[in-house]
Every structure is written in C-alpha cells, then in structure tokens.
C-alpha cells in the first residue's frame, strides 16, 4: 500500500515537472509564433509590404507595413516581456 502511494506521488511529481518545463517554452513560443506568422504573411502577400517596391509611395504607405508590425510585436514581447517571466517561472514553478 505504501509503495503504491509512493508510486502515485512520484507520478504526480513527474506530471508537475512536465507542466513546469512546458510553461517557459509556451511563454517564449508566443513571441516566436507572432514573428513566424508575420514572416509567413509577408511571403504570402508581399504586396502588403511597400518597402519591397518603395518608388512613388507616400510617407504613410512607407510607414504602413502590417506584416512587419506583427514581427515587431512578436519581438517586443519575446525580448522585453518573456525573459523576466521565464525567470520568475523558474524561481516559482
């Protein structure tokens, strides 16, 4: 009976450990997912990027690069928000 209980607790501890190790990856993955989504969007719809054909474009059209906005948002999250979050997760799993 004691051995069964110990085995059950060991399994629970392993499950907790698996979840704890998955969370940092998910936290970092959010940013990279946005970056990849932005790059894929730029590849699928290159006409949404006026910097690829900048001649005869006004200032606002050169500023408006939606796929790049997605990439930048992903990078901002990945490098400004995620690192401290992962550190806090590792400190308090």
């Amino acid at each position, binding site marked *: 009976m004691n051995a069964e209980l110990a085995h059950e607790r060991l399994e629970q501890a392993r499950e907790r450990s698996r979840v704890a190790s998955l969370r940092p990856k998910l936290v970092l993955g959010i940013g990279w997912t946005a970056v990849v989504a932005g790059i894929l969007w730029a590849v699928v719809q290159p006409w949404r990027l006026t910097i690829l054909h900048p001649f005869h474009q006004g200032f606002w059209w050169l500023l408006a690069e*939606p796929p790049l*906005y997605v990439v930048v948002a992903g990078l*901002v*999250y990945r490098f400004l*928000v*995620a690192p401290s979050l992962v550190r806090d997760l590792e400190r*308090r799993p």
Partner: protein
Amino acid sequence: MPHAEMVHWWFATGFLLLGMLALAETIVGSEVWGLRAWRRYLLPGLMFAMGVLMWPVMTFYTNSTIHMVAHGSWAQVLMLAGGSELGLAAGKLHSRWWRLCSVLAMLVSGTAFLVHEQQHWLFNRAAWLHHALGWTLVAGAVFPLLRARRPRSTLALGGFATVLIVVAVMLFADRDTAPIFGHLSTYAGVPHR
C-alpha cells in the same frame, strides 16, 4: 493624412500585444504574472493608452456623426476598462466587480461597430469585418464577465486573450476597399492596391 485602414493596422498591433500579454498571463498564472509591478501595469496601461490614442482618431476621421460617436465611445470605454484594471493592479480598487468595466467596454465597442456599419455583410471587406468585429466583441464580453465572477479562471483569461488576438487579426485584414469572399459591391469603389 494616413488612410483609415492604416490606423486600423496600428490599433491591430496594439490588440495583438494585448492578446499576447493576456495569453502569457493565462499560461503562467496571475500569481507569477504579478510578481513584478511593471508587468501588472503593462496590459491595462496599454489598454488605457490605446483609449487616449483613439481621441485623435475620433477628431481627424470624422467623416460622419455616427463615426465620431463610434470612435468617441471606443476611446471612452477603452480608457474606462484600462483605468479600472490599472486601479485593480495598483491596489487602489479592491472589488473584483470593477472588472465589469471590461464587460461594458466590449459590449459598447461591439454595439458601436454594429450600429455604425450601415452596409450589409458582403458589401465589401470593411463592412464584413465591422459586422464580424461587432459580434465577436459582444459575444466575447462573456469572458471578462466570467473573470469578474471567478478572477483566477484560466478559461476566462484565456478566452479574453483569444478574443483580443481575433480582433487583431480582423483589424489587420481590414482594407478601405477590397472584396470579401469574392464579393464587392459596385457602390464600394475601386480597390486601390
């Protein structure tokens, strides 16, 4: 002056950031998220800032009274939702029912989208997105409502994050004149690019 679609893309970027922040909080839990003070203020602060930035949009994109009322109402409810969440994050407000401000914000925003779009769903892409955004926000209000009742609910915060990301995707898809599922009304004008 920038085109209306460009302003939608800028706000889409804001909603995408809001969505990523809410999703991260869902994954790590509110306890870990709140370990650093700056992080607690990040989401509501950005929401409040987007409300402030909506005022110039209201001022400079007033092509009709109903547009002015819609943009003005978004500015007010974004600031109200952001402000109440800031108050909760700072510990100045204590009641969890302050989260109902986010419910109100989503209901008012969704209704404003639905009311100020006078065209039918398949008139053009902007019309379709206005209807879709409106109903998404009205239906999505259930998540902050659930969060007001159960502040630690993963479903509530995760659902809220999903709604924010869906709103961002729809705003990024917006064009001033473009077809939707192959439909474009002859009254909508000529797509420019």
